[in-house]
């Protein structure tokens, strides 16, 4: 069998590359609105996932873990501990003779580790300059959208025990 090319004014390479790149990339209004509806469906799916998560939520049960002895750290001093899971680092700050506060060390912006700044008496995230109040964990400055989760402390004898986590530390 002999294949013969039909007479044409187009060069031979046109047969092999018959589709224009511009035509291939062209998106019609109908295609674009279909894409928009699909995006809307994706966001609805996200909202439904949030709804399912919130409906299936069970109240968290936190363990009681001793974190420090009374007087173990000086006033203005800091101790790092892990609570409630071994991977969750927290900071305990002694702000007065009988006052201890503890917060999760994960910044609520992008989970960088916050550090205590004694001169400024605040918790600071070095990544994006987010500052938190050491008194109640509320956001003082920067991009963090929420207060730092507060670790509930209880004094049991000579020990300070972590007994829970308050996600809404701000009063």
């Amino acid at each position, binding site marked *: 069998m002999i294949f013969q090319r039909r007479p044409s004014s187009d060069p031979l390479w046109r047969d092999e590359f018959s589709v224009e790149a511009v035509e291939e990339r062209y998106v019609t*209004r109908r295609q674009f609105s279909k894409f*928009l509806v699909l995006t*809307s469906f994706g966001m*609805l799916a996200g909202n439904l996932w949030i709804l399912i998560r*919130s409906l299936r939520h069970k109240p968290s049960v936190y363990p009681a873990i001793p974190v420090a002895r009374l007087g173990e750290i000086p006033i203005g001093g800091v101790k790092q501990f892990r609570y409630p899971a071994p991977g969750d680092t927290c900071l305990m700050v002694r702000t007065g003779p009988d006052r201890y506060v503890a917060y999760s060390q994960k910044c609520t912006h992008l989970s960088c580790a916050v550090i205590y700044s004694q001169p400024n008496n605040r918790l600071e995230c070095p990544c994006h300059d987010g500052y938190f109040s050491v008194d109640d964990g509320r956001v003082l400055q920067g991009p963090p959208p929420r207060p730092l989760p507060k670790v509930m402390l209880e004094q049991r004898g000579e020990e300070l025990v972590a007994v829970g986590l308050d996600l*809404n530390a701000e009063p």
Partner: protein
Amino acid sequence: MERQQPRFQRQGLTAIDAAISLTVILLMVQMWLLTTALEALLAGHRETALPAALISGFIFSACWVLFLFVDKIDTDVRQR
């Protein structure tokens, strides 16, 4: 000289462009709703999830209706 589009075609294109613009605005609202609901969930406020999901569903329905409108106008204009 450039060929002028027929009147019905121009009207159809205007209607389609308006519908697409409205869809984009609705999508922006839906995006804001999703991020707000997620922030609230992470902050422990679970009560916002239901209204956010309902409004998101309503916005999706509106986008779907607008798509059907675009599809209908497009088909009509091509057939004429």
